């Protein structure tokens, strides 16, 4: 009796975990150009979900459909279903600002606003709620710490964010995104414009952040995927070729294309 109860709990818990973001039959086109073809997959909660694949395959397009940042693209045609916490994202009158507060995004190259470091951290959250000075200070400190940047910038919070190195700017962008308190972090090649040391700092950071956030990471870098991915999704020419846990895909992929890509970095799809 007791074990049955436990199994049921496990199932329901698993269901929530495994279908935190659940995509089915997603098709995306720009005009007549069919970019994503019938993608169905699930991203898992509190994991680093890592999307890999050759350039132009549609990885960014997939990511940008999840927070609908591509919504204003006037020749975008998008069909299928993306469920987030069992709610459909792709409905017409979806509250996009609410969605984007819950699903944050970090872009390929850091983009800080021409303001101070402190103002950059507050940039999003300040527009959502009225904050006292004390609240602002604590938000700035908390999120810069969460993004492993606090020790480097705590004495110069009022300096221009442009004075930071590119790697620091990227962590500032992460802090700015975290300040809005999202549940999911979409990261589109966040380290591809960074040096190896900054890259490592951000990888360590992602490993720490997944305890609290669900991370969906796009990377070109197969060894990075090997280092930090939990789940792996291989997308090539708009199709999901294979997905599964990283260890399975690296040790025993079902598809020949996956093996070729993961071990030779080339693609024969």
């Amino acid at each position: 009796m007791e074990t049955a109860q436990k199994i049921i709990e496990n199932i329901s818990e698993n269901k929530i975990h495994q279908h935190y973001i659940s995509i089915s039959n997603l098709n995306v086109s720009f005009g007549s150009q069919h970019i994503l073809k019938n993608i169905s997959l699930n991203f898992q909660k509190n994991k680093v979900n890592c999307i890999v694949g050759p350039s132009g395959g549609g990885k960014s397009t997939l990511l940008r459909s999840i927070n609908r940042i591509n919504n204003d693209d006037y020749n975008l045609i998008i069909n299928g279903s993306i469920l987030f916490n069992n709610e459909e994202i792709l409905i017409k009158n979806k509250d996009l600002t609410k969605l984007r507060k819950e699903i944050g995004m970090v872009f390929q190259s850091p983009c800080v606003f021409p303001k101070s470091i402190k103002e950059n951290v507050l940039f999003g959250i300040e527009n959502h709620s009225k904050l006292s000075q004390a609240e602002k200070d604590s938000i700035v400190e908390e999120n810069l710490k969460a993004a492993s940047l606090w020790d480097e910038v705590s004495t110069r919070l009022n300096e221009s964010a442009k004075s930071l190195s590119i790697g620091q700017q990227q962590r500032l962008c992460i802090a700015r995104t975290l300040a809005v308190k999202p549940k999911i972090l979409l990261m589109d090649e966040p380290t591809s414009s960074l040096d190896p040391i900054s890259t490592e700092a951000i990888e360590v950071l992602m490993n720490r952040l997944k305890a609290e956030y669900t991370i969906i990471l796009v990377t070109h870098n197969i060894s990075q995927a090997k280092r930090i991915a939990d789940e792996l999704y291989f997308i090539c020419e708009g199709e999901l070729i294979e997905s599964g846990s990283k260890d399975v895909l690296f040790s025993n992929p079902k598809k020949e294309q996956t093996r070729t890509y993961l071990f030779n970095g080339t693609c024969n799809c």
Partner: protein
Amino acid sequence: MDRKLKNSIFKMLIWAAACVAIGILVFLITVLFYKGFQSISVDFLISESKNFGSEGGVFYQIIGSVLLTLCAAIISFPLSLGFAIYKSEYVKNKYLQNFTDTIIYSLNGIPSIIFGIFGLILFVNFFNTGVSWFVGGIILAIMILPTVILSSYQSINSIPNSYRENALSLGLTKWQVIKTVIFPRAISGGFTGLLLGLARAIGETAPIMFIATAFSGVTFPNGLFEPVSSLPTHILSLAQQATNPDALENAWGSSLVLILLVFSFSISAFVRRLQYSKLKY
């Protein structure tokens, strides 16, 4: 001919052209300053004109010109910002983009006398406003719209799209993005354009001579629909009395005052442009 020779001939031609252009400008300005400074004094600036301008000063002409440009600025600035933001943030359709471009460039190409006639027919005759500085301000505002719109649009358009996407991805509404990211740039670019536009507007005669100004006997306007006098129309009327040496002297003086006002606008615009070219997004 070998390339070196070609190059040096070409270089010389360019230098010659530049020298001619600069030479004419320097000549004009030197004569203007030389003649002008002989005939102006503090008294000239603060006393009203007498005897159709051949005696007295240009106080009310300065007031009138400043009033006209101020009015033009207040009307055209918000309109231009609105239009520039609408064009860059809301017009997605290519045809509509081309259409707005065409409107702006055609407006810019219209000779200023046409604005004057337009104002005369629409406001003075049709709406029966009479000769009015306010109408003059409106017409000048319309005339400088393209300059202000383009300068503001260009500075908005130079904001990389990633700034909009980053702001949107933080959950900002479109209006919040415009307020925090777009608007500050629109204002700074638009202000430079405004100064350039005003430098042009303050020197124009044709658009205002039928609708906004009277040639003599004008002091402070008592309401919106009253005439003023202005420096360029004053210079025109003095030039028509060129046989009278006193009138001619005052024409030089008025011209110098006008050109100093124009310079003050253009130089501020230039300085702003220098500052903002340093401040990059």
